């Protein structure tokens, strides 16, 4: 019997592995299907990546190579991701997806695009940096606000540099704790937003990072006058199936795997502040 099974992955191959941090804690896979085709998916969406015998985890799309191959950046935090770190180029894996909602790129047309990211939260918005640097988002200008714990935790320095060199992209970074060589900002990401430099009435903000960081960033965006309707954020919850069967990602009435992970703030504003929901 040939029945569609939403739990059965397709095969894909790791084309290359890139270390993103000196610590080796974050690495990027460039993937293609074993038939040579590119993996589908839009910025903001995620795939379920399966490593043989280890398990399967949700990972956001973190970009595409110039020839269109999909990339995923993975942080080692536990059983499955630790095992994934040991896989080398050429290894076959399983992929299900893409799943979930995407960043609303079309809505950025004619607006200031404000990208707010904390830590690994830069991975799901990195496709936006790539597209903006290639003039493929029809926004007026782009402001990137990125915070990490320390300078050593900063991801994708090449992409940030390329953006900073673009005439219509501004990059602001901050760290919680500087080191001896650090001459940039020290403090939390929302402070970067309070410095202004964008038109709050004609902006669209996308926010991605730890939940507490997103809450404070939302406060700052509201404070400078960006309406909830123009703020988007990406939520993270435990997920096993990504199709609403396992029930884990529920956030009151939402299944974050299907209704999210990208939400418009006015759709979830009443849930955001309720702890342990």
């Amino acid at each position, binding site marked *: *019997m040939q*029945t*569609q*099974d*939403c*739990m*059965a*992955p*397709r*095969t894909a191959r790791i084309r290359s592995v890139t270390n993103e941090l000196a610590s080796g804690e974050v690495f990027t896979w460039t993937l293609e299907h*074993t038939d040579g085709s590119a993996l589908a998916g839009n910025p903001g969406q995620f795939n379920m990546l*399966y490593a*043989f*015998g*280890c*398990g*399967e985890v949700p990972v956001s799309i973190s970009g595409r190579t110039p020839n269109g191959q999909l990339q995923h950046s993975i*942080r080692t*935090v*536990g059983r499955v991701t630790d095992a994934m770190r040991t896989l080398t180029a*050429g*290894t*076959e*894996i*399983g992929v299900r997806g893409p799943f979930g909602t995407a960043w609303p790129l079309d809505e950025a047309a004619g607006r200031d695009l404000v990208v707010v990211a904390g830590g690994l939260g830069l991975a799901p918005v990195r496709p936006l940096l790539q597209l903006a640097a290639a003039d493929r988002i029809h926004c007026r200008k782009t402001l990137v606000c990125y915070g990490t714990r320390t300078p050593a935790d900063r991801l994708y320095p090449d992409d940030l540099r390329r953006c900073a060199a673009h005439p219509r992209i501004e990059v602001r970074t901050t760290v919680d704790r500087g080191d001896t060589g650090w001459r940039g900002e020290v403090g939390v990401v929302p402070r970067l937003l309070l410095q202004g430099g964008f038109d709050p009435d004609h902006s669209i903000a996308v926010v991605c990072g*730890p939940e507490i960081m997103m809450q404070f960033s939302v406060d700052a965006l509201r404070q400078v006058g960006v309406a909830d309707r123009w703020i988007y954020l990406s939520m*993270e*919850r*435990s997920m*096993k*199936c990504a*199709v*609403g*069967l*396992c*029930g*884990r990602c*529920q956030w*009151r*009435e939402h*299944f974050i795997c*299907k209704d999210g992970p990208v939400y418009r703030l006015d759709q979830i504003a009443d849930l955001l*502040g*309720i*702890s*342990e*929901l």
Partner: protein
Amino acid sequence: MESLQRIDLVGFGSLLAQLQAEGYTLIGPRLEAGTIDYGAIEGPDDLPIGWRDEQSPGRYRTLPRNDRAHFGFNATPASFKTRLHRSEETVLEVQRGEQGELRFVPVIPAVKKQAWIGARSCELAALAIQDRVLKDSADPDPRYAARREGVFIVAVHCGQAGGTCFCTSMNAGPKAEGGFDLALTEILDGPEHHFVVETGSDAGAALLERIPHSQPTAADLRRAADAIEHARATMGRHLDTDGLKTALYAQAQHPGWEEVADRCLACGNCTAACPTCFCSSYEDQVELDGANARRTRHWDSCFNADFTHLAGGPVRASTPARYRQWLTHKLASWHDQFGTSGCVGCGRCITWCPVGIDITAEASRIRQANGEPPK
């Protein structure tokens, strides 16, 4: 009504025999280890004839009746959920070849004919809910769907209600309003002992044609209606669902969640017993040969710490948050997600909670008390 027929006890035996002859495995209630639960049966003699149950918060007991009722008991410990949404199953097999090439083979069971004997209205309401969640969604579970396909349902309208039942509050009984092939009302009145049969599908009508039946008398129909009315009148509990969703959403930060959590053990019995709870975990394991792996699914519970595990720890770290999630999902957010309540009022979670927490009492307490204003 013309679709109503009457079968006597011999006819009832023929009904079961005919189903078997047509290749159905019979799943019905049996008295076993002090409970009345569903399992494979061979005929009427396997039914808990002359037995009843007594249910109250945290308490279940079987007792003899003073008659030979075949269906004189209420909700079984396990629901029919276990027949379709198995507590554990393999969903995927993975083979790794010599070059590391992977092959994914979905594991989908063959359709098997099973006849459910004595499914109650709450059970059918729960089945309709599970269908929506697991079969009629954009990404259905093909294993559930395959098992579901082979089911023939002989329902029984309840003639008595249990101490923890509140199906009337949830519009889920005591009379099954559809979703069956045949539905029986057991008539027990002095020497009178037979069934009034209602047809719910073409398959049900065809089956009824093949077994001895007769026209029910006006007295039969009156007794059948009385039996269901008796169940309605003896409902153990009640839940006011009017405006409940709005109230529960508004009371998310109510201190009452802490109060119930002081008693709740976060054991997850309620979610296992509930006929609509569907949450699952999927696990991947590799075989010792290193060339084969499998993915299994097993029931999970929103009361488990692991359920919301993220790199930083569980999102719902505390028991109040987990109880709030469970109750709010059953009675409120389920409506937004699936256009129906997630609760059918079967009372299992009340009976099988080791500390006797009562969902009807907790829901009304949370909605009534004056909560702190949202923080």
